[in-house]
């Protein structure tokens, strides 16, 4: 047990605690706040996995943009009466069963391939070179991911236009 294990447990608690709050909180702004905690925890895991760039981008995009967008949407679509209404729908018990079943299957599968009892020390190959610059090279070299990269930019552009068109107030 080193410092990284302690940090991992800390972040996991943050992630899962936040996740539980996200799906159970009746107050949606609080749920969004919990979502931010979860996203922070995920960023922390990226740091532990030595993907610093991804961690920064996670905070920049997820917390700086998506979470704020979500809070905006919550505030723009809020009715005061909502606070008293239940947060979960009538079939939540079924949903819970499904989720638990999924978890059980996933745990069994993971346990079958990478057993938890394999020890507290993971052995990963050493990281060579600067992974951020390698990521940049991979994203922009034509024989690697330049094409998906461009497609992603087109996707973003069209999503932006679509969002504007959908959400714009119709002028008469």
């Amino acid at each position, binding site marked *: 047990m080193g410092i990284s294990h302690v940090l991992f447990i800390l972040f996991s608690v943050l992630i899962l605690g936040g996740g539980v709050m996200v799906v159970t909180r009746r107050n949606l702004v609080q749920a969004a706040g919990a979502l931010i905690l979860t996203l922070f925890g995920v960023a922390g895991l990226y740091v532990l996995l030595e993907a610093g760039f991804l961690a920064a981008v996670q905070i*920049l995009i997820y917390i700086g943009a998506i979470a704020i967008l979500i809070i905006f949407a919550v505030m723009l679509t809020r009715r005061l009466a909502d606070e008293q209404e239940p947060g979960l729908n009538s079939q939540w018990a079924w949903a819970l069963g499904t989720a638990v079943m999924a978890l059980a299957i996933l745990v069994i599968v993971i346990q079958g391939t990478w057993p938890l009892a394999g020890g507290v020390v993971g052995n990963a190959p050493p990281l060579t070179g600067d992974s951020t610059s390698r990521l940049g090279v991979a994203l922009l070299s034509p024989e690697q991911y330049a094409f998906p990269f461009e497609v992603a930019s087109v996707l973003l552009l069209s999503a932006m236009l679509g969002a504007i068109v959908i959400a714009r107030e119709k002028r008469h």
Partner: protein
Amino acid sequence: MEGFDVANLFVSIGQVWTGFLVNLGLSSQWIAFVNKLVAALLLTALPVTIVVFTIMGERKIIGRFQDRLGPNRVGPYGFLQTVPDVVKLLTKEIITPTNVDKVMYNVAPALSVIAVILIWAVMPIAPSMIGVDLDIGVVYFLAVSSLATLAILLAGWSSNNKYALIAAFRTVSQLVSYEVPLVLSLLVPVMLASSLSMNDIVQAQSRGWFVILAPISMLIFFISGTAEVGRSPFDLLEADSEIVAGFNIEYSGMRFAMFFLGEWIHAFTFCALTATLYFGGWRGPFVDQVPALGALYFFAKMFILYLIHIWIRATMPRFRIDQMLAFSWKFLVPLALVNVAVMALATKLLAPPDLSASFWATLPRWGGFLGVNLIMAVGTFVAVREVARQARRKEEEVSGRFGSAAVVQE
């Protein structure tokens, strides 16, 4: 004590301190830990200390701009005015309104300060004096400063006050809008230095500051930085004539002071960032011989830029909100996009700096970049003039048609 070297002041102080710890009989692991703790403490204390001086200085200077004396009661020339202010803020009653969202209400002020102070972790203050030389320093600073937006939103929402919420909406839309040109202009020094690390960017300016290579990028960065900080003329987040006070209307005492503190730290932090990214950071004459001078240059550049900040604040009236948003989306963002594209092309075409080359050999490169920027500036000017002319023509058409009515309305 024989190694104490004034030129390497900070390194020497560090050595002395480490020696002191060794004498205490600590193991090397613990020494590293304690050192990091102390460094973190110092880095946190640094901006908080600076802010005391800047508040005082700003009040004095603004007073002069506005043809009055400014604070002049406490201490010589009123220089100690900040002390009673702080005492007053600390001793004020902390009011928590009813029906607020307790957790968020309390977290928001702290978050707003944390977000700003965290930026100082990657700020290169002097050679080999940097909190942590992250290889993604620039992205880190962007990520961290996006938390300030969150703090404002949370504060506005959790206050359970309509004005606070509206102010938060306005503020967030302002911050989000200006983050786009900010990031786009930031790409230029990153491209020129071909690194995301703040330290590398400073190092890359050894042959000339980036402000010479990319003045337009610097201007965009400075302007959108001003807007990000929310200072005049972009101080809509506390437009007291329109929305009473802003998102922090329900806060009092120390909590209010935290927002206040965060904003002021943010202001000169952006000046520090501008200095680092465009004005060579700690670079200056004789820094290679006397590294300790670096800190001096760094703070000098920061304060000069801050002076410009104050000057703008004292001179410019406040934007209207639609003007402010239009300025970002219709002017800064397109310009920043063009700037990035053109500068990327220029970086590709003009040879990368050869550190061994003589000063004269690098002149064509500088000239090329300056020329490109000049062309862009002229192009921008022409485009803006054309747009303005068309708008005026349209306005004249309208007023020609409804001339009398418009006059009556006015």
